[in-house]
């Protein structure tokens, strides 16, 4: 009986189990001993079925991150700067969003896992329609990603988690080539939550994602037809990014005080400070790099 009850903690059977095992070894091959130790240091609260209350499954995630880790190490060869500035406990990572595909978010998450000390699991706030997508919704949930409602964010911050927010949303992600490295309009929601929960904000600048898929022209009528936020025309075709070199810059933590339900103008002023911090890191990052691909 005992054997039967504990079975699900062990490797699942069948093809899926074998795929999971193979992916996990790939993860460990890419990350080496160091990553194995880091993963062992992450101890999310989990029940006898291996998940935390939000559905984050560390064992599953070890397999699911393999391709992302490959992009991080081999394809984009991500370089991080200033990751030691991440404070312990709850934190909001506010970053620029670019590159047509939200790979910048995945790369920041990998940096937090592979470089930060102690290793952190980033919980991103995913779009509210993501739960309607089969497979994607399940994979993201098991990997610790959560639907971006203010209540979910509040709860995770209260639990001391690191949350990643792209205040530009698709405005940043799908902007066209001539607007590269120009921050689009920021939403105010993250600032409300930061004030309400007294959470430090770390501005993050990602350099290199803009060039992975330059949006030469936005086919708006086609996007509208298929219900996408935009339809970018890129040199390689949409799903394939160019192997640019990613540089991720973490800024000094910023702390704000004030009324979370205050006037928008007041919030806007604070958001402006975060935006300026990111924009200035972007400017230096772009100016200092020698090459887009190296």
């Amino acid at each position, binding site marked *: 009986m005992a054997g039967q009850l504990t079975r699900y903690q062990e490797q699942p059977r069948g093809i899926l189990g074998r795929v999971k095992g193979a992916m996990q070894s790939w993860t460990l091959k890419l990350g080496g001993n160091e990553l194995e130790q880091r993963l062992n240091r992450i101890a999310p609260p989990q029940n006898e079925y291996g998940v935390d209350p939000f559905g984050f499954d560390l064992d599953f995630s070890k397999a699911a991150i393999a391709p992302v880790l490959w992009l991080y190490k081999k394809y984009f060869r991500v370089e991080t700067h200033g990751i030691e500035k991440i404070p312990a406990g709850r934190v909001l990572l506010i970053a620029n969003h670019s590159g047509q595909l939200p790979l910048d978010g995945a790369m920041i998450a990998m940096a937090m896992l592979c470089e930060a000390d102690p290793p952190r699991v980033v919980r991103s706030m995913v779009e509210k329609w993501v739960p309607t997508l*089969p497979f994607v919704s399940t994979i993201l949930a098991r990997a610790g990603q959560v639907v971006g*409602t203010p209540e*979910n964010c509040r709860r995770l911050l209260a639990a001391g988690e690191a949350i990643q927010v792209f205040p530009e949303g698709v405005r940043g992600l799908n902007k066209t080539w001539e607007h590269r490295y120009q921050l689009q309009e920021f939403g105010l929601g993250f600032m409300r939550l930061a004030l309400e929960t007294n959470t430090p904000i770390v501005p993050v600048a990602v350099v290199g994602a803009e060039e992975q898929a330059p949006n030469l022209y936005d086919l708006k009528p086609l996007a509208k037809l298929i219900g996408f936020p935009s339809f970018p025309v890129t040199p390689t075709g949409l799903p394939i990014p160019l192997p640019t070199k990613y540089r991720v810059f973490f800024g000094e933590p910023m702390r704000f005080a004030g009324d979370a339900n205050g006037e928008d103008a007041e919030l806007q002023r604070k958001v402006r400070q975060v935006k300026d911090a990111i924009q200035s890191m972007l400017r230096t990052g772009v100016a200092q790099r020698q090459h887009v691909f190296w």
Partner: protein
Amino acid sequence: MSSGEEIPDFTVEEAPFDDEAPVALHAGGVVITGISGNLGRTLAKLLHKSERVIGIDRRPMRGKPKDLEVHLIDIRRKKVEDVFRRGHVRALIHMGIMHDPRLPAREHHTFNVLGTHLVLDYCARYHVPKVVVLSSASVYGPHPDNDNFLTEDSPLMAASRFAEVRDLIEVDMYAQQFMWRHPEVETVVLRPVHIVGPDIKNAPANYLRLAHPWTLAGFDPMVQLIHQEDACRAMQAALKPGVRGVFNVVGPGEVPLSAVLRELNRSSIPMPHPIARGLLHKLWQYHLVSFPAPELDYLQFLCTVDGSRARKDLEFKPAFTLRETIRSVLPSG
């Protein structure tokens, strides 16, 4: 509702009330509507050791202990008032709510909504100090943009995708309205997650008993279950003097639907969601299944709630573990 003339009648019947004596609390009976249902019998078994239980149900109660008083009346009947008029009712636990999607909407609508109106109004008229209404966490409804842990303040959106459940929402809303209109009555609305157990035959428990349950391919929402005995313990906890308000009642935690089905050794059939709804609807129309198509939402989206208010104010803690709760639907237990 102004029933001033009833009060002298009541005071004559009621023995002089002494706040100091703890016996006085037990002098009054606890009325349970829907006592003959499977959950009702579990509750009666739990309460009747410490309370004088008075049951109301139109169905006879199987295995009724001799000392248990059960009135075989439909709660919409005027005769129900007699149970309250006789006095000595210290609390009402209203769980006489039915949810049978096969019945015509009018039947369960009048039974649920009208029945709730009537019994709650008797409580106000005859000065019953405590009312506990058993609602359900399903009133929030499964939705793609739900919070992972819905609090008691979340809007009750279940009917937006499944119109047949609107009477369950109306019952919950009426109980809340009653709470504000009658501050002298301590009203408690309980919204437990899916109740399962060896005796329970509701949709979630029946689903988990299927050998080949459908799932929706690519969807694996977190689910919350509570054991029937834990749900009854929560109702008992709600009887505690001083407690009022709306409470989500959560069992031993959250778990992916797939893990529940694995624990029960079910071989599930993953259906592509675009065709599952239409197919289930057809099967339902031909009476081949007992699950209406909108219930597929529970296999696709979250409808999970935050039970911390009940943990704190009701001091409610489930006694069964997650594994015991899941396995409670199995025949031998």
